């Protein structure tokens, strides 16, 4: 791919089409749908997501309430739509933060090696040996319960992943001839890493970012499920599932099932895109 000369003639419609074809998968369509829902929630949602209506408690799905209502008479469809904002924003922010911290440190570790590399690598391994959920509980215990901390948790658990991944893809590149050439040309290390090393490692890292976002959504919903990170009645998928959990044995399934399906679909979308990117770069 890199050997192709890029010229104006290369941009024929057929060629652009073949370049864009990977975007025409159900995963991307799903992601686009979620993004649109997050942006347009106020326009699509038929009800105010935190408007209680004591006349309309626990109604099953109907034409008036597509996904039914919860114990407070809030419209679940509207809440699921609005919750897209919470979950997607937390996940994307957390992963972006982990990316910004983990990738440069990982690149430096992989490129320079030495004791610094050893230190960061060992620390990452130790952090990763603490089961993720327990680690999250500890951070919440120490720092308090808020949405900001939720983003911090998502970021912290992902930093070691990005760090180790970047390190492992940078290491084989640093001995390539073109890096030696850049070094001989007298370019400073920071410039070599930024201009010549990192661009060649982006495939696996971007793929990991998408997979991490999928897990971030699971983590966000999971923590909210046990009351961490978001407070009711703020619409969030995990806390909505939690609201419905004790009602399952009464047969009021819709309270949990619809937000749960939303989590599942969001995870599938991000995970699928991540794997798709990984496959492209595997060859």
């Amino acid at each position, binding site marked *: 791919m890199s050997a192709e000369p890029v010229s104006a003639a290369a941009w024929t419609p057929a060629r652009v089409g073949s370049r864009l074809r990977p975007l025409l998968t159900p995963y991307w369509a799903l992601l686009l749908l979620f993004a649109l829902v997050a942006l347009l929630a106020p326009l699509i949602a038929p009800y105010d997501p935190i408007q209680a209506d004591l006349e309309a408690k626990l109604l099953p799905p109907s034409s008036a309430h597509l996904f039914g209502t919860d114990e407070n008479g809030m419209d679940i469809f509207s809440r699921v739509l609005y919750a897209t904002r919470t979950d997607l924003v937390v996940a994307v922010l957390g992963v972006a933060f982990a990316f910004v911290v983990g990738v440069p440190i990982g690149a430096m570790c992989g490129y320079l090696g030495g004791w610094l590399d050893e230190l960061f690598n060992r620390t990452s391994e130790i952090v990763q040996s603490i089961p993720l959920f327990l680690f999250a509980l500890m951070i*919440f215990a120490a720092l308090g319960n808020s949405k900001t901390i939720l983003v911090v948790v998502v970021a912290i658990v992902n930093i070691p992943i990005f760090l180790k991944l970047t390190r492992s893809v940078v290491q084989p590149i640093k001995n390539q001839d073109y890096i030696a050439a850049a070094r001989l040309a007298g370019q400073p290390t920071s410039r070599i890493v930024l201009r010549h090393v990192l661009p060649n490692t982006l495939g696996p890292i971007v793929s990991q970012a998408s997979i991490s976002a999928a897990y971030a959504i699971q983590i966000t919903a999971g923590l909210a499920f*046990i009351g961490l990170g978001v407070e009711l009645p703020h619409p969030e998928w995990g806390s909505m599932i939690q609201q419905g959990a004790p009602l399952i044995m009464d047969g009021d399934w819709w309270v949990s099932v619809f937000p749960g399906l939303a*989590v599942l679909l969001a995870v599938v979308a991000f995970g699928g895109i991540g794997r798709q990117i990984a496959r492209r770069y595997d060859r």
Partner: protein
Amino acid sequence: MRRGFWLRYLGRRLLAAVLALFGVAVIVFVVTRLLGDPVELILGQRATPEQAAQLRAKLGYDDPLPQQFVRYIGDLVQGDLGVSNYTQRAVTDEIADRFPATLELALAGMFLGLLWTIPLGVLAAQRPGGWVDRVSRAIAEFGLAIPNFFFGLLLILLFAYVLGWAPAPVGELDIGATPPPRVTGMVVVDALLAGDLSTFSSALKYLALPAITLAVTSCPPILALTRTSMITALRGDYVRSARAFGLPQRTVRWYALKNSLVPVLTMSAMTFGFLVGNTVLVETVFSWPGVGLYSVQSMQRFDYAPVLGVVLLGSAIYILVYLLADLISMAIDPRVREGQT
């Protein structure tokens, strides 16, 4: 010479495990003492400044940090994880009461997980891209994508509410049922030891759904790895020779499986190591009285010593299981041994 090598290897792995445990303890120390205020953690935010100062002096939080650290490590080594603010009991005792339930659930989940992932992985590798491969991949993808607590709820909805095959999610036994005499702490095992078959079958019913939840949501990586390492193994020269000799398909498959077991074993160990952490939400959904539910309940009571205790326990289990898997794969696979010399 072999013996010396083994001892040296064992020593090195043990040392690494101890260092990792130490590292986890350091992280817990840093997070709680430097980022948060331990006295606030214990008293909650409503305490008066005098109360806080009193407790601070009593627990030695006025001492210089290095001294605190030494005392903290000393306590840990003696198995002292502090006192629960809610029950006033030692956290170590409370955890010891609840850990068997978690272990029982994790073992059952792991057993079911291996039962479906390894055979499917082997079958999928026979014909990559075939229907078994595609179906098993779809199941694995689903298991990974669905949050375990939500999958648990769906199982409850289907098997407990709609079909009535499973009991309502109230823990290990019927509410009010007398548990069997405590031997291992695992109700299923204890019931069997006591020869109490009705309790045994009831306990199995309670165990089924949470164990299936763990098996489906935590084990897909084992399936993927079994498949890949089987595909690699089936491409090996010895497989071609075995086929050329006309050995039956089953024998050939067995050779390949033996050769692909080491990575699968390591992955299974990692999965099991993480099961203890992964049970947190599943235990919450099924009111399963293990350490995961304990940590969540403690968290909701602002009782933090138990939370930190479970964090240390979960990490220690992960590190130890990983060490064990490492040593076992050393013992069974000569190639790993060669690689280490």
